[in-house]
């Protein structure tokens, strides 16, 4: 061996960093390229060979994107729908998980099984009847139509129940001696103890709903309700819009999710662990 032990170790570390860097560049490249393209001028987006960076960022792309489409309004709509579904699911899932953990009543386990079994039904299977129902209710192009069908979800109930099961039942007995009813116990003891699980659910839901495409595509038809993912696709279909403004729209659209991802990274990872180990 011509290499000493430390030299070998150093070489190994350097190789690892090199591999990590190559992988990270490959994965993050589409995002990076979207960001730099949003700072090109329209002619620069058509240059060949393509440019990969710019020294003079062209901010007017953003102005142009905003002139073409009410991007902020779309983002607001997406944000409201995502928050609405997330908050709603936290409430319905907490109540249901509480019943499945702390309450004892006939038929409980059957009901739990029935609710879990909805995970086997792909959402697209119920798409046509749901569309007809929303139509009949007059909820086309409304926030109700975008939010209400998603207010309950089996995964959320399952996740919270797994967490609630770790809370000792003695706590409930103690609480009831202190004159604290079930709702009080849920609100004052269980929810605060289950904050990490609720955080996980919140982050996951927010990202999922913000990501929705097919449903809002079907039931929104005005700018005042259109979500940002649908709005972006429209921007992209308009041949007269250059890539720089389309990318400006894309970048504005992923700012909220990037913030949620960075703030909620820990929660997201915790939740995945729960799913991975238990699943």
């Amino acid at each position, binding site marked *: 061996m011509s290499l000493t032990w430390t030299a070998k170790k150093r070489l190994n570390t350097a190789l690892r960093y090199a591999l990590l860097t190559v992988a990270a560049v490959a994965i993050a490249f589409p995002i990076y390229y979207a960001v730099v393209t949003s700072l090109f001028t329209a002619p620069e987006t058509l240059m060949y060979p393509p440019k990969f960076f710019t020294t003079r960022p062209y901010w007017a792309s953003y102005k142009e994107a905003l002139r073409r489409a009410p991007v902020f309004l779309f983002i607001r709509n997406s944000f409201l729908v995502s928050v609405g579904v997330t908050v709603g699911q936290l409430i319905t899932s907490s109540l249901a998980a509480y019943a499945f953990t702390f309450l004892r009543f006939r038929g409980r386990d059957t009901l739990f099984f029935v609710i879990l079994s909805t995970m086997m039904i792909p959402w697209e299977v119920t798409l*046509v009847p749901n569309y007809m129902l929303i139509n009949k209710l007059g909820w086309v192009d409304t926030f109700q139509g975008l939010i209400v069908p998603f207010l309950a979800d089996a995964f959320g109930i399952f996740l919270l129940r797994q967490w609630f099961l770790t809370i000792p039942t003695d706590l409930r007995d103690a609480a009831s001696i202190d004159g604290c009813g079930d709702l009080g116990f849920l609100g004052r003891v269980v929810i605060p103890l289950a904050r990490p699980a609720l955080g996980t659910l919140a982050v996951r839901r927010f990202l999922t709903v913000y990501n929705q495409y097919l449903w809002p595509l079907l039931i929104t038809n005005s700018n005042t309700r259109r979500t940002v993912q649908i709005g972006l696709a429209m921007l992209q279909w308009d041949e007269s819009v250059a890539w720089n403004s389309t990318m400006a729209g894309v970048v504005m659209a992923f700012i909220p999710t990037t913030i949620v991802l960075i703030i909620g990274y820990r929660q997201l990872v915790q939740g995945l662990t729960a799913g991975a180990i238990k699943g």
Partner: protein
Amino acid sequence: MPIASTRRVSRTRREVLHFLQGIAYLSPVIVLFTVFIFYPLVRSIVLSTFKTDLLGRPYQFAGAAQYRQIFKQGFGESLVITLKYALMTVVPEVALSLALAVMASWSLRGIRLFRLLFSSPIGIAVASSSVIFKMLYSPNAGVFNYLLRLVGADGINWLTDPKWALMSVAIVTLWRQLGYDTLHLLSGIQSIPHEIHESARLDGAGPWAMFWKITLPMLSPVLMFITITSTIAALQSFGPINILTEGGPAGATRVVVYSLYREAFFNYNFGLASAQAIVLFLIVLVLTLLQFRRFERSVFYQ
């Protein structure tokens, strides 16, 4: 005995009260699931066996004829395309995310930054990713063709060549899913007790042996989990197809959900669309049952 009977009465009364309390807590979920899942599912099954008018009202019982008709209209090809698409995304997705997760588990300074970069596609919605990739795929000035020419190959018509279109769409889905899968596998790797690796090292096992003999077997539940969930997700793909190819060229990317979307919302044939939906349901059902068997064990017998 009067005492015994009052006791029994109060016990039933208590049971009824407990039942009502339980139902009260569950009522939002029961109502929502009934209205938006169970009723529509039954309705889908009904619609799939009826001829429907332009408003989606069933008017004539058709039994299995609707199912025969969708297969006559090329639904079989859609199924084949969807399965190919699922294979194209899931196999490389699992392999790549495993490699990425192993890399992300190295204890090096600054590894958190790499983890964040590896998971960054999670923050980009499917529609946004599709728009970004549409730019990268553009045949003349697009980055992918530029890179191909750089290494001396010819450019590809990524989205308009029937040979490549399905793969191009699959790449978008694959890229987006990598973030989730890597995080999943990473937390799986981190939950493997340290002592196992430590004692293997003391026994003289090299990094490769440790990967094949310890990490991989210990990860198999997680690998199974992400394989099934990503397969189900791939079977439900719609966004990238609608944005990038609209089912084309020449039907090369007409996956199941896209096909039922066209049938329902362009041809207004809700009956035929429902028959397609039910076939999709049956496929997903089988896959989920595979997953559920392990899932059930962990829910009820842990």
